[in-house]
Each structure stands twice: as C-alpha cells, then as structure tokens.
C-alpha cells in the first residue's frame, strides 16, 4: 500500500507495522488528503496490536495535513485494542512543536521523538 506524489511518499511496511511518511506534504485540503487517510484507516481496520506512524523523514506538513492526522487519531480512540505510536524526529522542528497535540487528542498514544 502506497500513496505517492511529487514531493512525498507514504507507504505501509508490514515488517514493523509502520506507515512511513517521507518528504513534504502540502496538499490543498482534506479532499486531497483522503487517499492517505484511507491508507491509514485500512491498516487500522485490521486491528493490529501495534500501529506505528513514522514521520521521521517528513520534513513538512501543512495545517490540512495536521488536520488529517488529527482526524485519524480521533477515530482511533474507538479502537482501544490498537496501541498507537507516533515516531518523530527531534531534527525536524515542526514535529517538536505540533505532534504533542496528537497526544492531547489521544492520551494513550505513545509519542516517540528521537
């Protein structure tokens, strides 16, 4: 499973149950983010015990993208059996600023900034 564009790549790696984000995401709005949200929801629908969203190579995410991730995380509050983890990088400043909001939406989420 993969969603790829000019400057970004989002794909699922079943070896570690991680959805990896790469590049810069500046899509125009929620509609354009729908394929990525769908990919996340498809993985979540299988109710894996652990699910990782790996953002360590995502250099940029606009507010529509933040909105899309928030929407996914809010939806995951209903799937209590799935342990969610967001993997980020301390070298990418936006992640230190904005990812903590996801944890506020879902206190059980593990936020790992490396």
């Amino acid at each position, binding site marked *: 499973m993969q969603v790829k564009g000019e400057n970004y790549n989002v794909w699922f790696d079943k070896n570690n149950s991680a959805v990896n984000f790469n590049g810069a995401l*500046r899509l125009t709005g929620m509609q354009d983010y729908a394929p990525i949200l769908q990919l996340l929801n498809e993985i979540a629908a299988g109710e894996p015990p652990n699910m990782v969203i790996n953002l360590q190579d995502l250099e940029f995410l606009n*507010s529509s993208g933040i909105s899309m991730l928030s929407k996914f995380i*809010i939806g995951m509050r209903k799937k209590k059996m799935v342990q969610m983890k967001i993997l980020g990088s301390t*070298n990418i*400043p936006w992640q230190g*600023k904005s990812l903590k909001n996801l944890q506020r939406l879902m206190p059980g989420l593990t936020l790992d900034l490396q």
Partner: protein
Amino acid sequence: MIQIFGNFLDNLFTNENLEKAQVFGDFVERPQQDEHLTLGFSPSAIPIRKRWRNNGLSADYVANYLATFFPTKDNQAYSIEKLAEMKSAVSYIANELLENSMKYADQTALYPITLHTQLDDDKIRLFVDNSILPPQIENFQTFIKELMNSDPDELFIRKLEENAESENTESSGLGFLTMINDYSAKLAWKFDTVEQDSPVMTVTTMVELAV
C-alpha cells in the same frame, strides 16, 4: 511570477487607507524601512492547483532569505538548532498564509496577492494581503472574534474535534490556530476597500513571531 512592488507598500499603508480600514488585533501599520522582502502573485493568472506547489517554494525561499538577517540578541550567532527552528517557523507560517490567500482571494479581481516580510529588533512580521469575496468577510470576522474571545488552545482542540466529525471538509482557521499554539505567534488583521475600476475588498493578515 515574483515581482517586487515598490509603490505597493506605500499605497497599502497610507493614512488615507487606514481611516476606512477595519482592524483586529495589534496590527502594525507601517513597515520598518529595514530589511524587507515582498513577493507578488497574480491569482487569476493560472489555476490554483497549478500554482499550489509555488506556495511551498515561496515559503521556503522567504525563510531561507530571512535567515541571513534574523535579528540576534547581543550579536550572538544562533546555534544551528535555533536557526533551523526559526526557518521552519517562517516557512510553515508563510506557507499557511499563502495557502489561505490562494484559497480565499477573489479570482476575478485584478488584485495581486502579496507576501511581505519585515524584520524588527526582536520580531519577524509576515503580512499577506489579498482580495476577499464580500460574502466571506462576515464568516472570517466571526472566526477572528471567536479567536480573540477564546482560549486559543481550547479552541484549537475543539476545532480538531469538530473537523473529525465532518466529511472531507475542514474548518478554516486551523492554520491560524497552529501559528498561535505551536509557534507562539501573534496575529492581527486589517480589512479594507481598495478603489479600482470597481471597489475590491481586501484583507491583510499580519503574523508576528518573537525571535
């Protein structure tokens, strides 16, 4: 594509215009004559989808350009981390401002979108000026008033929750809320009317970042 508007700033900030302008927040009326940079775009020239990629290019350019002039306290050079953090903040905010302006500008008005940046002693200010369709002004001002009368942190979480409930739509204003909550930015707006062949309603959004 990218033009410098010499007279544009003079026109934008003349006292004559200010008298009829409607201001929200601590809008800084006159840019400093220090280092500044203005980019201009013609919203009707090519379709929004085609020009979308330029928002990111322009935002990154502005952030990189300004980095040379970032004011420093006590002339101490910034650490690499601090510089990266500031560039990232400017790039994020400039991109959001451009995205908004491209979405909300009146495509039929022959009025340019301009992104103007200026440096003050310990502040960076970004201004984006664009036309706006009259029916959208009320919605926008309602949001601004809600923002000014709310705890922005609480409002942000509430908007994210509301967003999650709706199908494929997003409440506007999340970009502004991230600027305030995640980047500690201060925002202000000026609504105005510019006399052209027919009057054009305009809005200037100002974002101030402390260094």
